[in-house]
């Protein structure tokens, strides 16, 4: 029969504290010798627990629960002294740590309660009628056994606590994502619904108006669909097809397709001797389109958009997209690459995290600088195709 990872870890920890059969034997003797003192030890344990708010608030069942807990502690101490310290023993200790997370008992109280228990048993050992070296050996064995128990409980506590935190974070992220998607879908749905209302109820709808509303419904269905497409393309970004390509041409095409407002002036610097880049041209078009769109949206009253490409050593090409817009506050700057984080009233907040995801897969880098009120610069670094281009 194969042992569980928890039991194997216990065996490993036992080797760490040099646990041996003599320790087990000494604990059995100690258990018999301390049997008369056990009720007082247990009473002290629970009397102390009831003096602390942090422990008392997890005991919700009153005196009856305390009595049940005392009975469990009696069994726990018997097992500590008499064993067997087998897999089932380990699982029961593990379960204690898990249970403490469930009821919200902080781990420090377990450590303190066991420290108190340890002090009281050691005190009882000093009163035993046996040679001092025997008593010291008993204390050492007891400490090993208690430390092993505490390690198991702590281990289980940490694992359960970590799992619970992850669950809470997952739920919060899901709520955040659901809110973002709901917002992005309800706006086009709102236009569809109000257009339908008009078409069904208007008293004086001209044929032109009717056509306009039908076209609007069609257009908004497209917008809603693009939200879904953005989500699924983010969730399932295909592996990049790395090939040499002309960055300047890619930037120029993206700018042409960007439908820039007339209030935005563009200053483009794309040197003729720029080497080819090594990357997925299609995915990098998405990167440039996102950066250019963000720059334009950062300048609601128009302004200068600068796009500058240059070689960076033999290995890299840098492309900077710079605006003179509203800028990004320092606290937001730290979060702009997070999925579903947005500083805008519209949008899912996926643009820059998609940019980051694409660059990560192509060994590219993104560097952002921004001054609120003055503008932002997004600089990306791509691999140059110089060597690779010749090789392929």
């Amino acid at each position, binding site marked *: 029969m194969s042992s569980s990872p928890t039991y194997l870890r216990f065996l490993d920890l036992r080797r760490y504290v040099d646990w041996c059969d003599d320790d087990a034997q000494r604990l059995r003797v100690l258990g018999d010798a301390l049997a008369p003192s056990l009720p007082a030890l247990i009473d002290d344990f629970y009397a102390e627990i009831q003096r602390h708010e942090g422990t008392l608030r997890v005991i919700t069942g009153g005196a009856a629960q305390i009595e049940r807990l005392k009975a469990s502690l009696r069994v726990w101490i018997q097992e500590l002294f008499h064993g067997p310290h087998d897999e089932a023993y380990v699982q029961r200790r593990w379960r204690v740590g898990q249970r403490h997370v469930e009821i919200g008992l902080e781990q420090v109280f377990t450590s303190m309660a066991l420290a108190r228990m340890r002090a009281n048993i050691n005190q009882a050992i000093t009163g035993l009628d046996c040679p001092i070296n025997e008593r010291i050996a008993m204390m050492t064995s007891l400490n090993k056994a208690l430390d092993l128990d505490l390690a198991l409980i702590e281990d289980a506590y940490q694992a359960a606590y970590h799992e619970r935190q992850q669950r809470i974070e997952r739920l919060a992220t899901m709520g955040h994502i659901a*809110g973002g998607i*709901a*917002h*992005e879908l*309800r*706006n086009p*749905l*709102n*236009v*569809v*619904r*109000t*257009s339908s*209302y*008009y078409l069904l*109820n*208007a*008293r*004086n*709808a001209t044929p032109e*108006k009717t056509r306009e*509303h039908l076209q*609007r419904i069609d*257009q*908004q269905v497209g917008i809603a669909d693009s939200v879904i497409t953005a989500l699924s393309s983010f969730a399932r970004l295909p592996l990049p097809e790395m090939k040499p390509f002309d960055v300047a041409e890619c930037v120029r095409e993206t700018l042409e397709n960007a439908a820039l407002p007339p209030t935005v002036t563009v200053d483009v610097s794309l040197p003729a001797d720029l080497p080819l880049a090594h990357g997925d041209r299609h995915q990098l078009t998405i990167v440039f389109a996102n950066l250019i769109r963000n720059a334009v949206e950062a300048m*609601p009253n128009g302004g200068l958009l600068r796009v500058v490409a240059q070689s960076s050593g033999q290995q890299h090409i840098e492309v900077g997209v710079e605006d003179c817009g509203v800028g990004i506050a320092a606290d937001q700057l730290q979060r702009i690459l997070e999925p579903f984080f947005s500083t*805008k*009233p*519209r949008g899912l907040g996926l643009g820059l995290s998609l940019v980051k995801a694409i660059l990560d897969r192509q060994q590219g880098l993104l560097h952002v600088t921004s001054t609120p009120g003055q503008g932002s610069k997004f600089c990306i670094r791509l691999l140059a195709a110089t060597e690779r281009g010749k090789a392929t």
Partner: protein
Amino acid sequence: MTNAARAILVVDDELEACHNLADIFSDLGYRVEIATSAESALALAQHAPFDIALLDLMLPTADGIALFESLKTLQPNIKGYVLTAYPQHTRVVSAQAAGVTNVLAKPIDIGKLLVILAGPNPPSHESSSCAS
């Protein structure tokens, strides 16, 4: 009193949403003006009186509730209705304190909006005609 006497200011940064409300309320006989930003809404309110403001919550530079507070200083009798695709937004709870009459979730149920506009908070000139 007919709807022709009532003026509506529609503010939404999505132009299509503005156009739709403008078409629906114009067809019902209201005078409707639209704005896609808080700034242009305030500019309109400086030149023409409005009975009703239908305001999107999330606008580029201000939210609909803050905009309504500004509109109230220009036109104390204006009634505000906030429309939002995000009814769980933390700002929504401050709508009532700001004097907003109602908050409606997008996609808007126009039938419901018309019932809300008709009462229980009818404009003062209609109240006086009922009372006489």
